[in-house]
């Protein structure tokens, strides 16, 4: 009896509440989670995409870890890449200093490109004047101050040792091999020895024969 009396009202109220709930859920927006997708099968590639994890593939190691970025087979050499012949030891360091020479001819263009690379990869610690007073050293965050390029020690440092240091790191400096290509590393070294230290000049060539030119890492070709 009571129910009949309030039937329409009850239905109306329920409808209202449902509407409000649905409506508010449309607006509920938790920015820590991605939004809905229309058609996930068109959004997500069935083939491996960079930095995506895949759990449903038959390859066992991928299945276990979900990592699609695979380590190349040991000993793999990319095209146009020269493997670095010296080992990460004190002896390797000395040998690099004796035998490794700057293979590129130092031109103004090389120095300019070297400067560009230097401002992206070195300036934070070594400073824009090369005195070891970069931003993070000057503001006290990085406890180890790199020696000045113009100091006695680095003025006398063979370029081979500089390259070795970029390859493996030395002291508090880490390896930059994964970030800077070999060609770019020589450009940075050319910039340092020419502009900061003045011990090389534009037009100078350290090696009699230029090393086979390492190919610039190509822009990835389109997918198809």
């Amino acid at each position: 009896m009571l129910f009949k009396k309030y039937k329409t009202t009850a239905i109306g109220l329920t409808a209202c509440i449902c509407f409000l709930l649905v409506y508010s859920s449309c607006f509920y927006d938790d920015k820590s989670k991605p939004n809905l997708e229309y058609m996930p099968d068109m959004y997500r590639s069935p083939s491996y995409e960079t930095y995506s994890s895949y759990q449903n593939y038959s390859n066992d190691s991928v299945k276990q870890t979900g990592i699609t970025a695979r380590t190349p087979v040991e000993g793999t050499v990319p095209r146009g890449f020269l493997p670095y012949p010296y080992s990460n030891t004190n002896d390797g360091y000395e040998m690099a200093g004796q035998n490794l020479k700057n293979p590129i001819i130092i031109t103004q263009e090389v120095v300019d490109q070297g400067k560009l690379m230097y401002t992206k990869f070195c300036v934070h610690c070594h400073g824009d004047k090369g005195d070891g007073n970069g931003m993070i050293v000057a503001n006290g965050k990085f406890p180890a101050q790199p020696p000045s390029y113009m100091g006695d020690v680095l003025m006398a440092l063979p370029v081979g040792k500089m390259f070795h240091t970029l390859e493996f790191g030395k002291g508090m400096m880490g390896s930059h091999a994964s970030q800077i290509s070999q060609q770019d590393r020589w450009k940075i070294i050319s910039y340092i020895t020419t502009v900061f230290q003045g011990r090389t000049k534009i037009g100078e060539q350290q090696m009699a024969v230029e090393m086979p030119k390492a190919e610039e890492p190509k822009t990835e070709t389109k997918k198809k």
Partner: protein
Amino acid sequence: MTLNFTLFRKIFQSTLFLLLLNIFFITALYAADGEKLFKANCKACHTTTSAKLTGPGLKDVEKRIPSREWAHKWVHGSQDLVKSGDAYANKIFQENNNSIMSAFPALSDADVDAILDYVKVAAAAAPIPTAGSANQTSVSDGTTTESGIDTEYVLMGLLVVLIILVLVLGGLKKTLQDAVNKKHGLPTEPDLGPVDSIKVWFSRNKRLTALGVIVVLLWGMKGCWDSLSQIGVNQNYEPEQPIAFSHKIHAGDNGIACVYCHFGAEKSKTAGIPPANVCMNCHKAITSGTKTGTKEISKIYASLDYDPNTQKYGPNKKPLEWVRVHNLPDFAYFNHSQHVTVANLECQRCHGPVETMDTLKQFSPLTMGWCIDCHRTTEVKMADNPYYEDFHKNLMKKFEAEGEPNKKITVETMGGTECNKCHY
């Protein structure tokens, strides 16, 4: 006699004072000189505290080394000393992972002494051990709790108060009406109950009710439309990352270039999530964060199985699973190198002021309309851009033939809005 004694005492005092002053100045002078020498030669590998960098921290170094003469020999050529079979030299060489300390033959014995004096002064002045100490407590957990109450809660509270007020006033009105009716001998209005009274109100105010219904319906439709158009759009997406990494501190305060870590942006399709070895270029030395202490940085070490005390890597590496923020659907092709290297766009153009963000969020909607907008309005930098040299010449010829020699060349002019540029 008394006079003589006083005079003698005065002379003695002033001499003593001068002597002390002299000593003080000489020490200060030495220390200052030592500071300069320390910064130029030693600071790359040593601290004046007990914190280890490449070499050991130099606090209380003189208590450890055999003598100052030993220090002179060590600085002039540490390897000679190691090879000569000196016991302490061999001990510390092995303790520090066999890393060779550079020889400093240019430093005189007096210079080395000055450095040692400076280390003593500086170590006394700065008693806080920073890097490398394992028993450090984290400063805070990195989350900043904002004081004050959320506006939403204030509004909700106000709403509740208003509803209570309306109910109380309604009750009061009814009581008063009843009292008036009673006084005039009229029958009291029947008690309808809340639902019926609302019904009565609706039937009495039909126009207002109709208007209200229309407004609510339109509002609802607009809300539905808006939320539907947001499906698949992740603007302002701000996921929690496995490490509370702050772009504000790294790219903003410390001014580190974007491509230092995202080194793929100039050469590859993807800008790249930096591998942990890039973190270690700085965090081998910086073991404690500004806001979070060792809490967050130790996660990098855990991922690489690195021990900051011995500075050695273990075999149990585990990749950090960063949460991807910007993600284009599979059917749209995008290449970073094309935009960063060829078009020379700033990263901020699409990613917004990343250098001000503590937690990274998606700044742009990354919708197709947004892409097209930019392709239509952005003028291509043809001057000094070898990438477009031939293309530019041909295009200029074509425009001149068409009678529009000064036509603005946007990305669209070059076919940047063709469907199959991005969808294929």
